[in-house]
């Protein structure tokens, strides 16, 4: 005991007392039963989607390299695909718009034309088109006097551009008559005619009521009042009143006080 009293006591020794702390035996019995109940609940209970999130993230993290490679390939393919489409569109647009304006504005020498036709088999080649398309602008700027203001230059360019648009539309209508008639290039008159006919159809729903329907209504009304009987005077009076009211309503609705069908408004006293 005397030797124990002279023993060095360190922090590690004191912490070893914590290691010796153990719960009593009954604690383990309740621990076991509670754990079994929780385990059964975990087996039977349905797991929510939130519990599946860590597993999804783990799977994604595990296969992040293949996923990344596939995503990069898909992005590359999409980029190449859409960029080729847009390049084609850019190539087509100037060639269509520049064709009519080139003829009167630019005079290309036959040698240059031959060289261009040899280099590029298509008549309006995509590379040549921007150069040709810029020619009207250059000519417009050169046609304006050197002392003129920038506004006049802009007006000249705007005029040229409107000419180009008009000729392009004309070309389009000429080459694609079906599309030009059906699409946005169709005339406003056609649209108005269509809408007018639809409006007329929806304006007067009672105009389509035929006399047979009117007779059917009066017959149904007679059947709805069996106590009076079809031949009784009161029923006849009631059906006559209803018919009269319906005809009056229809008359008022059919009346057009302003007579909009006529081109001018006539006020009568």
């Amino acid at each position, binding site marked *: *005991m005397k030797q*124990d*009293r002279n*023993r*060095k*006591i*360190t*922090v*590690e*020794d*004191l*912490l*070893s*007392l*914590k*290691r*010796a*702390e*153990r*719960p*009593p035996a009954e*604690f*383990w019995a*309740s*621990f076991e039963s*509670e*754990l079994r109940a*929780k*385990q059964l609940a*975990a*087996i039977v209970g349905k*797991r929510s989607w939130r*519990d599946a999130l860590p*597993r999804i993230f*783990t799977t994604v993290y595990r296969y992040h390299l293949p996923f990344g490679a596939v995503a990069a390939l898909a992005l590359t393919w999409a980029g190449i695909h859409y960029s080729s489409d847009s390049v084609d569109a850019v190539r087509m647009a100037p060639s269509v718009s520049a064709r009519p304006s080139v003829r009167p504005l630019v005079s290309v020498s036959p040698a240059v034309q031959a060289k261009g036709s040899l280099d590029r088999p298509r008549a309006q080649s995509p590379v040549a088109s921007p150069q040709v398309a810029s020619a009207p602008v250059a000519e417009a700027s050169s046609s304006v006097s050197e002392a003129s203001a920038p506004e006049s230059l802009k007006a000249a360019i705007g005029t040229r551009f409107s000419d180009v648009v008009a000729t392009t539309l004309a070309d389009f209508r000429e080459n694609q008559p079906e599309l030009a008639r059906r699409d946005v290039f169709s005339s406003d008159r056609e649209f108005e005619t269509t809408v007018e006919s639809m409006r007329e159809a929806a304006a007067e729903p009672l105009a389509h009521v035929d006399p047979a329907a009117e007779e059917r209504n009066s017959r149904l009304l007679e059947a709805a009042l069996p106590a009076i009987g079809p031949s009784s005077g009161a029923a006849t009076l009631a059906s006559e009143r209803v018919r009269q009211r319906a005809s009056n309503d229809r008359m008022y609705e059919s009346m057009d006080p302003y007579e909009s069908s006529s081109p001018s408004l006539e006020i009568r006293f």
Partner: protein
Amino acid sequence: MNASKALQKTLVVSPERKLEADADLAIVRRVQSGDVAAFDVLVCKYRERVVGVVYNMTSNREDAADLAQDAFIKAFQSIHRFEGQASFFTWLYRIAVNSTLSHLRKNRMRSFFSLETIQGDDPVAREVLDALTDKTGAGRDAFIGELQEKLNDAMQKLSINHRTVVTLFEIDGLSHQEIAEVMDCSVGTVRSRLHYAKQLLQAELQPYLRQ
């Protein structure tokens, strides 16, 4: 075996631990193949250690029981994801420690401490207690209770991470490498935290120390 390879990475690789990891992996494979009852073997094997770790981190018996049960349930639910890259023991400890850390962070202000009985059959504990007091009977029990309270207070004054490192190293006997794996930090961080925590404990428990 994968478990053996994983254990070779730790600083303390004893043949017993390798054998233990291989045996655990065999049981885990049985559970993965559908033998649910085999999980009870793992529960019986590790429940005292897991409860001990959680108890020393929370200083509360009820919380320790709940958190240890939750750790076993989580391990059971996700045992199909265990591939044997680490030992089952380390994996289970990581689940328990992470659950306890999140519980402590959520309930920072709540502190209900409970004391467990120091087992008299532990030779080291008996030797330390004999060195600290020559009292017997009720006086000795009172002294032990007071010392336990002081120890709990000192532990609770540590930060959560420092307390965890001290618990895993000094009380549960894990190596620095194993603690680093469990806490998902570097070995240097573990050593630094351990050094700082011991300095704080030394200052708090100065009346009971004898140089």
